[in-house]
């Protein structure tokens, strides 16, 4: 199904400013996983994108903190649109 493929491909890098998403998985080496996980990037975590322009780094808010991520790191974080509409904090 086309829709679900699009859905599966969504990374944090493709999420527009102001949108809220839920983290699905992280594709990357152990070090990246470990560093991100300790900052709260775990499956199911709610993220809201604060800044996402061009090819620069992005800013997300999760668990009450703002975190800057390089563009490459953002493309490794798979997300899905948050249906719940609840506050991510």
């Amino acid at each position, binding site marked *: 199904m086309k829709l679900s493929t699009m859905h599966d491909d969504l990374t944090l890098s493709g999420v527009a400013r102001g949108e809220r998403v839920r983290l699905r998985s992280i594709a990357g080496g152990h070090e990246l*996983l*470990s560093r991100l996980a300790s900052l709260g990037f775990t499956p*199911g975590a709610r993220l809201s994108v604060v800044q996402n322009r061009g090819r620069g780094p992005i800013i997300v808010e999760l668990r009450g*903190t703002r975190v800057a991520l*390089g563009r490459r790191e953002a493309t490794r974080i798979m997300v899905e649109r948050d249906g719940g509409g609840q506050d991510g904090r």
Partner: protein
Amino acid sequence: MAADRTHVQPPAGSAPPVLGPGQAVLSGEVTIIVALAGQPNVGKSTVFNLLTGLGQHVGNWPGKTVEQKTGVYRYNGTTIHLVDLPGTYSLTANSPEEVIARDYVIQAQPDVVVAIVNAASLERNLYLVAELLPLSRRLVVGLNMVDVAAAEGVSVEPQVLEAALGVPVVPMSARRNEGVRELIETVDRVARGEIACRPNLPEIRADHRQVLDEIHALVAGCVPAPYPADWIALKLLEGDVEVTAMMRDRCLPPERWEKVHTILMAHEDAILSVASGRYEWVGRMIRAAVIHPRAGQITLTERLDRWTTHPVWGLLLLTGALGLVFWLTFAIGTPLQELLDTVLLGSLSSFLTTALSGAPAWLSGLVVDGILGGAGTVVTFLPILILFFAILALMEDVGYMARAAFVMDRFMHLMGLHGKSFMPLFLGFGCNVPAVVGTRIIDSPKARLLTMLLAPLVPCAARLAVIVFLAPIFFAGAAPLVALGLIAFNLFVLGVVGALINKWVLRGERAAFIMELPLYHRPSLRTIGIQVWQNSSEFLRKAGSLILVMSVVVWALASLPNGDIQTSYLASAGRALEPVGALMGLDWRMLVALLSSFVAKENAIATLGILFGTGEAGVGLGSALQSALTPAAALAFLVVEMLFIPCAATVAVIKQESKSWIWTLMSVGMLLGLSLAAGILVYQIVRGW
């Protein structure tokens, strides 16, 4: 590390006395060790500074280039040895800091661990508490920055949190000096056993319960002494590099390791599950304790970030901030430096010259020209550095520095670096020495080495001083343009070299850019003051040791064998280099001036003064130089001076921080080749015009 300390035991058999705050305690002197843990940006150093003031000891953790701070605080008959652990987000071996923090808690077994948490980002902060609790049950949580949290629309109920965690929680605002005394009182009572900690320990999620038990069974009996076996099992499951290596290489018999390894291979991303489990625990802890009375409001941080992290406005703002820094440096710092140079050094050197007139000439030369002229001159740059340190500490303390790094990330990427490398490089405008030391904040060793290599290309205040002195002599009205052009050229070279080294030398994976953007808050003058004081005294210590030695060595080269610089080894070196100099239109004297700038960059001027026989940079030097050099050669000289090998002090800290002679020599060789090539190129092009 603390063989003589007394462990405080709860009084056996009798109920502990009930004490009101501030009341005297009956028992005698006790000494306890308290470790201060916390994530970055929680105000941990503010707490530490409040308690220890200037009486803290700053060094390095054994065998590491990570700063270690310890201090002593006396309270109520208790001598508290405070150990400031590095700020870390977790206790997994993602960085040397994290390894240091957890090894200390496990091996030194401090009497009490204080976890400072930021009330405004409690959820993420309690993650570290979830990692600390299994290692130390005598834990006190310092709930810091309650005022900042309130301003951001977050309020935390300490009693509810305390009941949920099962360990004491003390609300505080270190910035306002509120609650710190209560924190210490609680620590003291926990150490005396008057408050019992019954922590609610986090558990692994059900989906990994079984596999953890399997690993636990396999490692049982093989875990070395201070390590808790269940902790080792959990860290193996997390894929912790250090623990895995330790168990594989030193503890487990090969056949057992094979079994463990097979299990681990099947659960490679278990870290996500373990972390999720901890965050679920955190969620339960805070659900009742954290309230958002003003949820949905636009906070100060949100409003400011719209400007400071904007690709255009953010960059303009940063440019403005940097401009202000330079303006302040030159408006205040440079006159002070000149004042110190002429008044303090001048009178000191004439005093010493007179005092040593009876002594052999070499002794007065060593003291006046070698020590005062080298190390002494470096010290006169302290006012400029203090200004720089203060502004940087301010930018860091209010939370702006992370935004500056964010804005610069795009540009740093061109060199394979990321935003964090911007901070130490920026410090380089003041002095390259702290810039090299400042590379410690960079997570990846490769990126750190590259930043260290690039730092000397940032023109430091000493080089700017040379430019400011010489440019008007040759270029009159165009001097400011020439000076700006030289700075821009250095930064351009920095970019090109960075991109090339990244492409050809340091190939391979690039470090991830992951950086917290802390909430903005009012600066603490005390924190800034102590930081400036520490950085400055560190710089002075270096001037008194490394820089001193190098100054003497270069002075010896400039005066041996006959005590005359014209016939010295340094002059011979200058003459030997004359064929190279000819390509730039420079005679041997200009080359010797360059070589002497190795002691301290601004020495170039003093050396020219001596070699052109006009005395100490007097009025005659300008016209003497004008007649000796064509404008093309003068420009070439300035270009070389700006790019030339780093000064002795910088070379010494590059060696110290990189722990590699090869890397240090590579840095020197690269800059030598680069500066001469650029000088020749500039001379040949400009001359043809």
